[in-house]
């Protein structure tokens, strides 16, 4: 019994620092956030009753959908080839794919600003096609934010897909082709079907990160960045309307939590 009590004390001692950090800096502030958003003037009805703020929410959700689609379309071929490559280059290529994750999102967004401003290469190319006005620039546009944010989040999609595709038994693909399926049909019917959970998990992860992204939408979107995170930033640090900022943050929190729960459930089903 004495041994048991001692073990209990050791466990409590080991857990105490983390428990303290989480109780004071996580549980308390998060509860405070909800209380702050509920106290005082009716903040939630102000958000949900104002077409401007509903537009901001819609913008962020649309950004999430667009970025998820772009990362999925560009990420799947890369992840598939990396997962199936047998050369020694495969390891190096995978490493290069994850390299951008080591660099701050501020730096990666700035790279796009260089390409997007009025005399930047990407904007000049679009001006040359004649489809846009001669003084058009991608900075401050929704398309610009999608292009930049999709690049920032692409490594995360690739890593998630890579892990799942590695787990798909390639003998099943061969079997499908031996039975007469074309490579395209085999890829569609076998690989994509079996990797479905991973595709969905990667999509949810990227969607959640896009909806709440701050640095890239703020830098590329500029003054016209009507996105959730940017609005929270303005309300907190510029307009100092903290109850309202707390309410918008709570809405974002609910979105992220519901996406995370779905994600956790999907991964749970996959491992079962």
């Amino acid at each position: 019994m004495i041994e048991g009590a001692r073990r209990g004390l050791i466990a409590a001692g080991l857990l105490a620092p983390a428990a303290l950090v989480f109780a004071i800096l996580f549980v308390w502030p998060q509860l405070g956030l909800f209380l702050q958003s509920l106290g005082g003037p009716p903040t939630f009805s102000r958000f949900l009753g104002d077409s401007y703020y509903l537009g901001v929410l819609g913008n962020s959700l649309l950004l999430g959908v667009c970025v998820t689609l772009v990362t999925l379309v560009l990420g799947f071929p890369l992840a598939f080839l990396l997962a199936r490559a047998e050369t020694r280059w495969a390891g190096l290529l995978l490493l290069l794919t994850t390299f951008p994750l080591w660099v701050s999102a501020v730096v990666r967004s700035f790279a796009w600003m260089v390409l997007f401003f009025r005399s930047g290469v990407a904007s000049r190319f679009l001006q040359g096609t004649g489809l846009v006005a001669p003084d058009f620039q991608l900075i401050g546009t929704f398309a610009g934010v999608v292009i930049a944010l999709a690049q920032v989040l692409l490594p995360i999609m690739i890593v998630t897909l890579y892990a799942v595709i590695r787990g798909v038994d390639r003998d099943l693909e061969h079997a499908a082709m031996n039975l007469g399926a074309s490579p395209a049909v085999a890829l569609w019917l076998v690989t994509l079907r079996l990797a479905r959970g991973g595709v969905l998990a990667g999509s949810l992860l990227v969607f959640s990160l896009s909806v709440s992204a701050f640095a890239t939408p703020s830098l590329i979107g500029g003054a016209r960045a009507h996105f959730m995170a940017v609005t929270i930033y303005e309300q907190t640090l510029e307009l100092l309307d903290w109850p309202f900022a707390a309410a918008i943050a709570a809405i974002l929190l609910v979105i992220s939590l519901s996406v995370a729960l779905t994600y956790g459930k999907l991964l749970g089903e996959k491992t079962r």
Partner: protein
Amino acid sequence: MTSLRSPLGWVLRGMAVLGFIYLLGPLLVIVAASFSDTGYLAFPPQGFSLRWYHAALADARYLTGFFVSLRLAAMVAVLSLIIGTAAAVALTRFAFPGSVLLEALFLSPLVLPALVLAVALTLFFSANPIAPPGMTRLVISHLLVGVPMVLRVMLPVLRRVDPAIEEAARNLGASPTKAFFLVTLPVLRPGLIAAAALAFIFSFDEVEMALFLGSVRDAPLTVVLYGAAQMQMDPTVAAVSSLLILLALLLMVAQQMYANR
């Protein structure tokens, strides 16, 4: 593999190449633009000059910011490693009621937007000024993500370590503490280094909490860069960005060399 030699294989390859250019191209663009001998940001660069690197190194804001970031990330890495590993040992080596729930709670900041954490902490610190603004606030706030990152690496690592090796040491007369430090810890070392590296990189690159909770005097490099990028298209920002890309490359190579040793 047969399907890779088919037309579909070539389509996939073409898209993968495009994806690669899209992924890494912008980083190369910024490095190229930083060498341009023009008073504005130019890509393709015109001429070759190191003047923007001179300007970057002469600008006290960037240098100060760099050292603030370095100090911040080092403290966050060390503290996260100690707190996170201790909690991971408790969660894997001791059975107690509610451990599953506690583990879920400890990992949950990883799925929450950094900005929401930042707002909640801003409101919290203004109501309860338990730490002065600036470095102290930033360090303890970054722990909120650093500790879960360490846990995510160390929990599976600790679960894989065979408890039998610790038992063997104890049967040979080592105390539980001695067995842990002499036998288990060396096995954990690669995991510990990976966890510390993750927490360091996170803290060094993070901008949201830094914007909300930092002070002007203790502004990390990401905050300085964020401000400068917003103001104007200054080639100095490209030079600083290139130096950061180089630093990330060196860190990644070092980590790989250690992992493949």
